[in-house]
């Protein structure tokens, strides 16, 4: 979706979020292989403004990182 001067209406927002969630779900099931979710990715990019896609992509990586930290803990630095 190309960005317009107007903001997204409530229904547009919901549409964007659900297409994003579908894509994220697919990524989780396919070990983050984007190739396997290309259709969903296309849908998601159609439904959301470019800026939002960038924002959500960053958020996805952040959430994954956070989850990893919470599950596995962090690797201590070997400062010697």
């Amino acid at each position, binding site marked *: 979706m190309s*960005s317009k001067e107007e903001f997204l209406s*409530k229904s547009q927002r919901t549409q964007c979020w659900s297409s994003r969630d579908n894509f994220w779900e697919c990524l989780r099931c396919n070990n983050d292989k984007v190739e396997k979710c290309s259709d969903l990715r296309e849908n998601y990019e159609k439904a959301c403004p470019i800026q939002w896609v960038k924002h*959500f992509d960053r958020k996805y990586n952040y959430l994954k990182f956070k989850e990893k930290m919470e599950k596995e803990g962090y690797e201590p630095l070997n400062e010697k």
Partner: protein
Amino acid sequence: MSFCSRRFFLRFQINQISKLNFSNVSGGPSQRIELPKRKKIFFGKDGPITWKTFGITGVLGVGMVTYLLYLKEEQEEKQRKERKRQLGKAKIGGPFELIDGSNNIVKSEQFLGKWMLIYFGFSHCPDICPDELEKMALVIDNLEKNEINTGIQGIFITVDPDRDTPKVVEKYIKEFSPKFIGLSGTSDQIQQVCKKYRVYYSPGKKDVDNDYIVDHTIIMYLVNPEGEFIDYFGQNKTADEIVEHILLHMFKFKQEKSSMLSNTIDKITTLRGQKIVTS
């Protein structure tokens, strides 16, 4: 007395004693030294203390002590006030002047007498603002069902005045709740209100479509009917928690006001009573 001066003093005393001993020896053991005797008068006409000096010293002393006590009291009062100011009130909030959807100037004074719940955001916000605004709508709805509620106005202020003109803000906010008021203004006006509420906002880099995301503080501010900032709620608070907090503040505010009112009524009645007695 310092160490050195004490040593000097001791040596001086020893010298004096040895002198005495020497005179004693020369005068023979039986002879007594006749030191000039002084009458031991401390008080009265010949003494160093007379009724006059005693009186003057007394008056001066009492005056001095009273003055010192007064200074101390004043200092403590100052400290008490300072502490109260620091603890009791945060320097957040204050009057603002913005523009609503019909291009009317809206002043914060217009909301005096009502509680305000203020959220800062922008209409192109991808996820957080819509979530928070939906939460705020839920909070207002739930509050209105409660009898403790004394009237609250939900207010949305944009941090992106370039794109969010007053019209855009109004259209955006009414989708969340028709009860909300959406406010925009000039860049200066927005900067001022954000400064007062300590809201950080920073527009990100523009992409090919000139679209951008504004990074900003995610906080709801509660302002009481006297226009004073009372509490804030971060993203981590649920709607129910916020409702509980606000109800508590409303209850406390009401109690304070009613006790103040009963106090003034008491004062007025006692004054009237006195008047009746005197007249």
